[in-house]
């Protein structure tokens, strides 16, 4: 079970100065579509540290998956990375050759995709999948590769791994398939593991198992984990830091503890309020963020969240807020609490940055404000 010292670990992790394994600066990704040019990722910066989990959170279409795929230089056409740097092991991934990138992909930086069924080849056995990775990246052959593959399956908690090597993907349940994907991803002991909504298709019980498994592997191997999800509730127990994305930009980023205790951006507070909770049960007790995100082809000049925000001011419509620290200085690259909001929540109220209750009360207010207007 989870040790109660995890909170301590989170604080330690924040206090200790770390050399990032990967650092993304001002990443931009464009898609040329029939309806015009769309900037799916617009100036995103973050770092990943060894042994740490960064949660990347946002609604469908906010650019979180495209950001993740950029790290692998696997953005699907017509998308293309048209700015920024991704520094990894002393090199800028955006300027190395495709050949070098192929050597890194799946070996040093691995991805667990969202849908484990479509990600696995239906005519290949589980063993074929893993052996292929071991052959290509590590040069393993024959029985060596097979027994390593069985070890990996057993590591991710698949019972009877030798037998499972010969199973086809359709013979496995959703949770088992996701475990196979994790085995594939950690086969080469990557420095960075990207998990794109790894539990969205799974039952709550299996979701908890998979997240625990990822935590364990992270602790053992000291890899950096980028956990992508639309559900802020999931990241709470499993991330050291969190970045909330909205319309291709980071709206707020902070340590997990800070972000959940004092969400400054109204969007973060809204997402937090949307998480169904066991301590707020009762028929009809839930909160909504009204409306949907604007089309990326038609972004407003000001804050992209303005039309859905309950604390909107004229300023929000006219000028786009940049990611800045809570005292207003523009981001300098440290991992302090940053947000892109003209009218941040707990700073505006008199009990600024108070206690644990702040977010809950704000959430309640947030929900009520939109009780009638969300249809």
């Amino acid at each position, binding site marked *: 079970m989870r040790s109660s010292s995890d909170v301590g670990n989170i604080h330690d992790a924040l206090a200790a100065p770390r050399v990032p394994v990967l650092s993304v600066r001002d990443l931009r990704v464009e898609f040329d579509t029939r309806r015009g040019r769309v900037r799916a990722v617009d100036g995103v910066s973050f770092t990943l540290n060894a042994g740490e989990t960064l949660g990347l959170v946002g609604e469908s279409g906010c650019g979180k998956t495209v950001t993740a795929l950029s790290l692998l230089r696997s953005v699907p056409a017509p998308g293309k990375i048209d700015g920024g740097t991704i520094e990894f092991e002393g090199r800028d991934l955006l300027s190395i050759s495709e050949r070098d990138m192929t050597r890194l992909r799946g070996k040093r930086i691995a991805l667990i995709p969202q849908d484990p069924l479509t990600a696995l080849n239906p005519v290949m056995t589980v063993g074929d999948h893993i052996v292929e990775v071991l052959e290509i990246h590590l040069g393993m052959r024959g029985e060596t590769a097979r027994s390593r593959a069985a070890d990996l399956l057993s590591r991710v908690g698949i019972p009877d791994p030798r037998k499972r090597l010969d199973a086809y993907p359709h013979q496995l349940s959703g949770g088992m398939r996701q475990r196979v994907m994790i085995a594939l991803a950690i086969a080469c002991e990557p420095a960075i593991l990207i998990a794109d909504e790894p539990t969205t298709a799974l039952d709550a019980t299996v979701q908890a198992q998979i997240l625990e498994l990822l935590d364990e592997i992270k602790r053992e191997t000291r890899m950096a984990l980028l956990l992508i999800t639309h559900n802020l509730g999931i990241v709470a127990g499993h991330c050291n830091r969190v970045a909330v994305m909205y319309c291709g930009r980071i709206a707020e980023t902070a340590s997990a503890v800070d972000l959940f205790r004092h969400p400054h951006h109204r969007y973060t507070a809204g997402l937090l309020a949307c998480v169904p909770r066991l301590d707020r049960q009762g028929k*009809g007790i839930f909160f909504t963020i009204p409306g949907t995100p604007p089309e990326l082809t038609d972004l407003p000049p000001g804050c992209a969240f303005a039309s859905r925000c309950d604390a909107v001011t004229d300023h929000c419509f006219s000028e786009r807020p940049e990611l800045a620290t809570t005292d207003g200085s523009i981001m300098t690259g440290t991992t302090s609490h940053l947000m892109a909001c003209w009218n941040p929540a707990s700073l505006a109220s008199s009990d600024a940055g108070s206690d644990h209750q702040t977010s809950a009360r704000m959430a309640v207010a947030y929900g009520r404000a939109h009780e009638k207007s969300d249809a």
Partner: protein
Amino acid sequence: MTATTDPLLTVEDLRVHFQLAGTGWFGRGKQTVKAVDGLSIQIHRGQTLGLVGESGCGKSTTGRAILRLTPISGGTVRLNGRDLTTLSAGELRPIRRQMQIVFQDPFASLNPRHTVEQIVKEPLWVHNLRPENERVARVRELLALVGLPASAMGRFPHEFSGGQRQRIGIARALAAEPDFIVLDEPVSALDVSIQSQILRLLLDLQVQFGLTYLFIAHDLAVVGQMSDQVAVMYLGQIVEIATREALYQSPQHPYTQALLSAVPYPDPEIEAKRRRVILTGEVPSPVNPPSGCHFHTRCPIAVDRCRVEAPSLRAIAPGHQASCHFAGGPPPEIHSARPGTSDTASS
């Protein structure tokens, strides 16, 4: 809880068994999957029963069997006092209007070649509701009810987001003017932020039209926001059923407790301190369910008795039933650190 009137829906001892093709010749070695095995529920008008369980527990089959979308092997289903299980297809047709379904996958459940107008109008045509010339106006009205603009009518499902598609599915269900709707994981495929919009819409519609819901989901946190009563299913049977308050405040079955403990809490420090019951493995195959209590293979408090003797669903308190040998006594203490109960063997 208004239990003074007769329930709108009464299901008694519902059984849905599927025959699997045998592996031997001439059908020898045929096996039976008891997808739903002796399920009884009642739902009063205007109320919601939440039905919760993991994939494969039979919750969707239950929903479909109640609507007679899947053949029933035994038991009765009464809607407004009328037994649906004895009706012929022809007799059933007018009654089908009263019961509708909203599906989980808003991408697969709408015909991609039909416009929104055609999709929502179809039930009007099938059940001959409203005169021909008023139907377009009715579609517009239904779309407004679910929060879609009239301009949506001429568009196709792929032009909409998941949440909007689910609104179209709800409008289609409402078109038949039903009394009872099966909501089969209506928000599982949606973003958390969109989920709450859809849930609020469903609740508003329930109040407005006095609808009765069977809300099927795998997430207890979501179910609690929608339901008056909650039933937890495991391998085709209800293992616990109670009012929402009772189930969340004093869950009796270890499976219910495990499901509750799997719900993430949006606070890192509380999460870190939480004692979690993580179930090992997955639901066993319903073809060959475990002996005794079906749950004993994953149960953190199972003893020898559980392996041989199947517990029956029994009353723990008024309106609260559970099928566990230990239910009702002192709340069973779950030893989460016990070997074999945790998936995290190394910690």
